[in-house]
C-alpha cells in the first residue's frame, strides 16, 4: 500500500472509530503508568444522524440519514472522510498533509451503489454499462452461490461413496486440501488416459480407477462441483497448461 492510501485509510479508520463512541475508561485503566488521556467529546447529532469525528478531537460532521449502529457503505465512508479531511485542512492551511489518491483502480465492489442510493462514487465515471450496474446485493448473491457450489464439491471430494465408489476410498485420501491435483496444468497430455485431457476428464478417470466408482457424465452436477472445489483451492496460481 502506498503512503497516500495508508493516510486515507487511517483517516477513514479514525473517523469510523470515533463515530458516536467515546473512549472507554476501562481501556485507559490498563495503561496504569500513564496519566489519564484526554477524552474526546463527540458533539450531539442535531438532525438525527450520526456524528463522525476526526482523531484531532475537534473536527466533526454529521452524516445525515445514518442511524446509530448502522454502518456506511464504502463509497459513503470515502465521501465522509474526504469531507472531514477537507474541513481539517481548511482549519490548518499550513500543515503538510499528502492527499491520498481517491481514484485508485479498485475492485468493482467499490463502485457499487448502496441500497441507500448514494451516487457519490459514480461522479466523474462511465455509467450505464452492465458491469457497472451490479450492486452489493448482487455480489453477495454470487459469492454465496459460488461458495455453496464449491462447498458441495468439497463434500463430494471427501465422500467416495457419494461418487459411487465401492472400496471406501475418497479423493481427499490422496489429495488432502486438493493438493497434487494441479488443475492449472490442464489441458495436457494425460499419460494415464493417453490423450489430451481437461481437468474433468482426469477427475472422471480417478473416480473410475482408484476410487472404483462409475465415471460421471461431463454435465453431471457432481462432476462440475468437484471441478469447482479443486479449482477454488488453486486461486492465484498462474495457469500453466501442458506442464507435467
Amino acid at each position, binding site marked *: 500500500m502506498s503512503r497516500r492510501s495508508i493516510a486515507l485509510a487511517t483517516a477513514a479508520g479514525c473517523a469510523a472509530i470515533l463515530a458516536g463512541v467515546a473512549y472507554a475508561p476501562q481501556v485507559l485503566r490498563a495503561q496504569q503508568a500513564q496519566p489519564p488521556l484526554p477524552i474526546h467529546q463527540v458533539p450531539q447529532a442535531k438532525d438525527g444522524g450520526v456524528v463522525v469525528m476526526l482523531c484531532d478531537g475537534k473536527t466533526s460532521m454529521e452524516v445525515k440519514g445514518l442511524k446509530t449502529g448502522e454502518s456506511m457503505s464504502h463509497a459513503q465512508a470515502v465521501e465522509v472522510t474526504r469531507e472531514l479531511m477537507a474541513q481539517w485542512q481548511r482549519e490548518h492551511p499550513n500543515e503538510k498533509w499528502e492527499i491520498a489518491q481517491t481514484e485508485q483502480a479498485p475492485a468493482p465492489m467499490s463502485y457499487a451503489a448502496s441500497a441507500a442510493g448514494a451516487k457519490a462514487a459514480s461522479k466523474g465515471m462511465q455509467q450505464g454499462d452492465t458491469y457497472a450496474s451490479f450492486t452489493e446485493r448482487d455480489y453477495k448473491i454470487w459469492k454465496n452461490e459460488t461458495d455453496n457450489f464449491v462447498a458441495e464439491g468439497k463434500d463430494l471430494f471427501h465422500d467416495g461413496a457419494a461418487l459411487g465408489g465401492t472400496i471406501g476410498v475418497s479423493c481427499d485420501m490422496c489429495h488432502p486440501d486438493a493438493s497434487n491435483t494441479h488443475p492449472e496444468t490442464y489441458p495436457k497430455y494425460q499419460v494415464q488416459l*493417453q490423450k489430451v485431457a481437461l481437468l474433468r476428464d482426469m477427475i472422471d478417470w480417478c473416480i473410475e480407477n482408484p476410487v472404483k466408482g462409475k465415471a460421471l457424465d461431463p454435465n453431471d452436477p457432481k462432476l462440475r462441483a468437484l471441478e469447482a472445489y479443486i479449482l477454488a483451492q488453486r486461486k492465484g496460481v498462474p495457469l500453466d497448461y501442458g506442464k507435467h
Partner: protein
Amino acid sequence: MKSARTLLLSFFAAAAVVVSYSLSSAQGPGPLADPKSENQAGFPATLYSWVIPPDNPQAPAKVALGKALFFDDRLSADGKVSCGHCHAPDKGFTDQLPTSMGIRAQFGQRNAPSILNALFNVTQFWDGRSPTLEAQIQGPVTNPVEMGMKSTDDAVAAIKAVPEYQKQFQDVFGHDVNFADIEHAIAAYERTQLAFDSPFDKFINGDPSAISDSAKRGWAIFNGKGRCMSCHGWNPTQPLFTDQKFHNIGVSAHKSDFVPLARQALDVLSKSGGGSEAIDKLAIGTDMSGLGRFLVTKQPHDIGAFRTMSLRNLLVTQPYFHDGSQVTLWDTIDHYNKGGVQNPYLDGGIVPLGLTEAEEDDLVVFLASLTSPEYADAAKQEYDLQFKRSRTDRPQRDTAAANGEKGRDGPGLAGPFGDIGPAQNLENPALLGGD
C-alpha cells in the same frame, strides 16, 4: 510432394523385385514383402520424419538391396535361415510360432516380433536391448540358436562371395561389402514396412462406417473399463498402440518359477556389484530370459518386464506375449481380466478388470479391426478359428478372480487371503453412525 513420394515408392517396389529375384537363393518372398505406400489412412507423417536417421536416408536402390539381404539365407551358418525365415511377410512378418526356430532346428526363448512399423519403435526386441533397427541386426545374425554366424566377419564374407552383391554395395554405398552397410541396407528395407491402413484407421480418421458397432464398443472398453489405453496408447501423432515402455504383466510367472529366478538375479546384482555381462550371457538361451528388461538395465523395478507391443495385425502374428504362450486373443484378454499372474514384481497397473464375456468379445472384434487390408483374408480365417476355440477352450479364464471374488493365481496368495474380494451393495463405513 506426395506424388513424387509415391513415384519413388514404386521405384522401390520395382527395383526390389528385380534385385531380389536375381540375388535370393530361394523363391521370391512375394508381393507382401514389397515396400508399402505411405498413402495410408493413419500414416503418421510427423513421427515418420522423426525416425528416419540422418545417416541412413531412404533410397530405392538401398531398399532393394536391403530386401535382397533380408530374404537371403546366406546370412546364416547353415545357409537355411534368413531374416525372412522368422519374419515372413505372409505371416505378418513373424513366424506364427511360440518361439522362433533357428539353425539346426534349435528353438530360442522369445516370440518373433513383427517388422511392420518396427521403424517407429524407440528400442528393438522384447527387452529393448537394441537402440536402433541397424544395431538390432547383429543380434540374430551372430546368435548361436538363431542364424549362428560365428561373427559379423563371416556374414560379410558370405555376402561378399556373391559378385552381384559386391556390385550393389559399390553402387549404393560406394564401398566394399561390410557389416555396417549390411545393417544400413536391411534397416532401410524394414523402414518401408508400414501398417496404418486398417479399418480402425479409416474409422478414426472420419469414416463412421469403417468398423462394426461391436468394434466401436470394444474401442470404448479399450479406453475405459479395460484400462488398455494406458499402456497400449494410441494418439494421432503416435498411432502405434504402445507406450514404448516395459511392464511386468505376469506372463513369465505362467511357466517359470519366477520368484527364485528373480531372487537369483537380485543376488547376482548385489553380490557382484554389477554382474551385467554375466546376466547378459545367461539371457541368450537360458531360463533367465523371463527376467526381461532387467537383463538390460539391471534395475530391480524392471524384473520380468517386457516391452508393450503394438496391437496391429494380431490375427496374423499369433501366438502372443514374449514367450508365445497364449494362443488366442481371448486367452490374452483373460490373462489381463483376472489381473495377470501374481509375482512380486507385477506392475501395479495390472488389476482384475471384471470384463464380461460380451465385453471380451467386443474387445477382440476391435483388435481385429486393426488388421492391414493385405492380411484381411488370413485374419478372418484366424479369427474364425480363434472364435471357435474360445467357445470351448479358455485355459486362462478365471471369472471369480476377474470379478474380485477371489485372489489371483500365483505364489504367496494361498492361505487365508486367497479369497479376498468385495461384496456388493455395501455402504461406506466412514458414514456409519453409532455402533
